[in-house]
């Protein structure tokens, strides 16, 4: 288990803008140990979201290799990547991104539609996930009937329901007030500490970054690491 969960080696990423090819990363290396809780900070446009997309198998690097749990994933096909994401990654977004016509429980159940679990097993999983985020009593509520913080908790439950190893959060508290943000961040901390989830979280807020074990600063496609918690 000493082996790192994710290893990025020599990552290059370019976007085509018209005829020009704009480099985001060049020769980027990064290692994320198991049970890490890393905050990524940096100015807008520095490539934070792009990095999360690469870690989560949403996007592929132009160069370099990505190993997840000892297996290469940068060369997987679209369908293999979809299966990889379903099995290994939980995503948490700034704007919650819940389905408005589904109840909280149904939103949480969504990733389980991709598994072979039977209805009973699914119901158990959903119940547990909602209990973990403290929303057992809101299972039947629609997103429109929940506060922002509650919606984000539903989103967290959805992210953990299929028991992934890695949680990727892109500004999970960007839309919340400080108190609610604290609750959400505390919850992520618990998931990291008690359930052993590895977490990579992008944030603009130094207060939020404090909840992480370490903070990485990204600027112009490069890291300058400072351990704020030290």
């Amino acid at each position, binding site marked *: 288990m000493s082996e790192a969960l994710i290893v990025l080696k020599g990552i290059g990423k370019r976007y085509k803008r018209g005829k020009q090819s704009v480099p985001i990363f060049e020769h980027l290396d990064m290692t994320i140990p198991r049970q890490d809780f890393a905050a990524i900070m940096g100015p807008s446009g520095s490539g934070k979201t792009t990095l999360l997309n690469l870690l*989560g198998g949403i*996007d592929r690097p132009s160069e370099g290799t990505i190993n997840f749990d000892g297996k290469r994933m940068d060369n997987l096909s679209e369908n293999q990547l*979809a*299966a990889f*994401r379903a099995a290994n990654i939980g995503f948490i*977004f700034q704007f919650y991104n819940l389905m408005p*016509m589904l109840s909280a429980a149904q939103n949480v159940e969504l990733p389980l*539609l*991709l598994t072979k679990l039977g209805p009973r097993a699914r119901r158990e999983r959903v119940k547990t996930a909602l209990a973990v985020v403290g929303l057992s009593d809101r299972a039947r509520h629609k997103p429109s009937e929940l506060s922002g913080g509650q919606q984000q908790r539903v989103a967290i439950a959805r992210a953990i329901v299929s028991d992934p190893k890695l949680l990727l959060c892109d500004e999970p508290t960007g839309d919340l007030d400080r108190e609610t943000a604290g609750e959400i961040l505390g919850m992520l901390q618990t998931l990291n500490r008690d359930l052993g989830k590895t977490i990579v979280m992008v944030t603009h807020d130094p207060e939020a970054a404090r909840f992480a074990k370490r903070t990485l600063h990204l600027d112009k496609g490069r890291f300058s690491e400072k351990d704020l918690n030290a």
Partner: protein
Amino acid sequence: MTFFQLIRKNLFRKKLRTILTTFAIFVAFAIFGILATFQNALNSGADTASADRLIVTNKINFTLPMPIAYASRVATVPGVKLVSHANWFGGYYQEPKNFLVALAIDPQSYLDLYPEYVLPPAQRAAFLGDRGSIIVGEGLAKQFNWKLGDRIPIKSNIFRKVDGSDTWDFTVAGIMTPGSTGVDVNFVAFHYEYFKQTRSFGGDTIGWLILRTESPKENERISRTIDAMFANSPFETETKTEQAFNKAFTEQLGDVGFIILLVVGAAFGTILLIVGNTMMLTVRERTNEIAVLKTIGFTADSIFRLVIGESLLLASIGGLLGLGAAYAASIGLAAVSGGRFGVMAFSPVTALIGVGIIVALGLLTGLLPALRAMNLNVVTALGRK
């Protein structure tokens, strides 16, 4: 929650929009079903026509008469097994709106030629034995509440009796039932001899001849022989198979099939645009959600099925309701029309074609949006907030 439930919840997310779209589909399929029912009715004569029956009419127009002597002359043509004749009476019961197909026939030969008009032996004998009697179709008997032995007055809008009245009284001697499905017995028939003697004009002339040939293979030759026999006479003839005759009769009403095709085509063209547009709009509105689904692991395939499933469900709900309404309407129409326009029935073929169109509509309207959804680029879709 199942995949299907997810599709259903997606469909009924914008309730008003879905209801309106469903209604448009419903109307198009109801129009299709009802027009197809009419077309089936118009074609029912041609479908049940017997291949070994020929019809001889006046060449100028089938409504013009011919001398009765033609019957015996046609009977001498080799290959002709049986000859009968009929006159158009132009009848109605009580009021002109109760229009009746009423025929003056030669009873024995006519019933022999049309075994599909079924009469119990006793009723048949009663009809043949009473010159003043009439046989009626079961649908008409039910509609007008006619019983065996009733005296019923039938009026003509063409003929007058010698005494100046326009009403003939007949005794109901038999009630006909169809020998097989599609056979149309919604008419009444009485003795030509009685009609001839009581009418004030027309003399001894008949409307048309019906004959049975030894084999359909002889039809061509016999037709030519008969028409040649009366060529250059004051009453030239035209001989056709019963099927061709029925078809020509229907075509008097214009090319109904073509008109139906146009109407149905316009209706479906319109809903194709409406539904296609709705689905496109729907997918565009959900760009972000689709990106989220893909992010959490839904494959391109499953996204495709999610969208195409929704358009199929939409087409199915509207389409099946529309076909159901057309089926209900066909039962009502059959009752109201009393079969005067042929056998008004919503056929299994119509249902099958309807279901085929439902599937085609669902696939066509869902295809583009589904492809668009499945090929959605998650990185750019999630990036644009």
